[in-house]
């Protein structure tokens, strides 16, 4: 009996140690960004390709106001409602005092400068694939945008998801920087994959998630219910989307579908961003979408 108790205690200690080790926020050190010079024009491109303003601009901001990244938009999910924080250049309310390395650790590791985990509502599971060069340039560009002193809205997340430490377990399970689509890609498709899988984070909405909120990469881009409740995001693999590359490019430029309906919902914001990219980048995303693995649409219910 004593031996068994001892065994149990050892097991608990090991369990706690493993938990501690797995859930510990991991950050990169300064070497990863050594010698990289920011390029503002590139930073602006990364800003639009990454869609920062779509979530971090104020609710219903339009025009120039979209460049004020004051935060405040709410994103409902089965785990609770997350509120986008202020990432404007204000040093106190925003991220004006962040170093490029702070931004790198946020986007690659999902860790704040204070060393706590971010919720993956912030799509670092995609941004982890962004190059250090792009992050350094984005950091420089964000510093040029207006400051806002808007206070952050706390996330509305219930137990157990409000234990941030447990997000280390989520990351251990689901965070990695492998490309989802691994095939022989030509340079255009490779650029498209980078824009779609890293910066554009298409998979965050268009790929279904498991019960723990991890992306089911075997069903990559095959559509998913809207975590906010009503509606769904469509399957955009060639199994369901038969648009030509010209159709896709037109959609990314003007928002018009081949039937000349227009993009709505959050996708209207995505199109606004894509329209700011060079035409060849829109063409690259189109080329990538034409070669992602086919996932046949699920038969309709009933």
């Amino acid at each position, binding site marked *: 009996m004593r031996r068994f108790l001892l065994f149990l205690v050892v097991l608990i200690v090991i369990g706690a140690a493993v938990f501690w080790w797995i859930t510990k926020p991991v950050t990169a050190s300064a070497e990863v960004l050594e010698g990289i010079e920011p390029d503002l024009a590139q930073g602006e491109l990364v800003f639009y390709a990454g869609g920062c303003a779509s979530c971090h601009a104020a609710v*219903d901001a339009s025009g120039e106001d979209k460049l004020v990244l004051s935060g405040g938009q709410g994103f409902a999910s089965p785990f609770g409602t997350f509120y986008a924080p202020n990432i404007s250049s204000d040093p106190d309310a925003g991220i004006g005092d962040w170093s490029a390395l702070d931004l790198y650790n946020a986007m690659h590791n999902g860790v704040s400068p204070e060393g706590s985990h971010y919720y993956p509502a912030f799509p670092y599971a995609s941004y982890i694939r962004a190059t250090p060069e792009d992050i350094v340039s984005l950091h420089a560009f964000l510093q040029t945008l207006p400051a806002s002193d808007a206070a952050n809205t706390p996330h509305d997340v219930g137990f157990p998801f409000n234990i941030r430490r447990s997000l280390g377990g989520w990351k251990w399970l689901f965070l990695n920087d492998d490309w989802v689509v691994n095939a022989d890609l030509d340079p255009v498709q490779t650029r498209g994959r980078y824009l779609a899988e890293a910066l554009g984070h298409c998979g965050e909405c268009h790929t279904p998630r498991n019960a723990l909120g991890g992306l089911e990469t075997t069903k990559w881009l095959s559509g998913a219910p809207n975590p906010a409740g009503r509606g*769904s995001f469509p399957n955009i693999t060639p199994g369901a989307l038969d648009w030509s590359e010209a*159709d896709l490019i*037109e959609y990314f430029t003007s*928002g018009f579908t081949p*039937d000349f309906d227009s993009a709505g919902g959050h996708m*209207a*914001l995505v199109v606004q961003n894509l329209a700011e990219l060079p035409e060849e980048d829109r063409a690259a995303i189109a080329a990538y979408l034409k070669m992602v693995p086919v996932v046949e649409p699920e038969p309709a219910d009933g």
Partner: protein
Amino acid sequence: MRIASITLLGAAIAVAGSVVLAASHVNVEGAIKARKAHMQLNAYNLGILGNMAKGDVDFDADAAQRAADNLAALAAMDTTAYWPPGSSNADVEDTRALPAMWDNIPDVLEKVAALQAATEAMAGAAGTLEGVQANMGGIGGACGACHQSYRQTD
């Protein structure tokens, strides 16, 4: 004098009565059909321009101009009657119009004005393929602005 005021009163009651009658007979179903038809007309004319812009159809300046003029005329039409209260997707099936539309009418009208400006710009530039291509995004942005705020996603 007295006859005149009675007549006037009678007329006033008749007018008020017909207003009440009209209000109680708002044809929501017909209004939804009408606005969808209006959207169809937009889409059809946009298609003529967009398929040229994409390079799927050879550019034809006359056809482009006619489609662009149609779009500008459609955008200029008063469509208030297509959007009676009680015709949002919270009230009836078969529409994706969000109730928020009726709570933000000044914003809706601003977005309509933006569409009018975008279609007029297209009508002024539809003589060349480059002009058509350059103005598709403006119209798309104007359509999308309203759809993003006031149309239920699928």
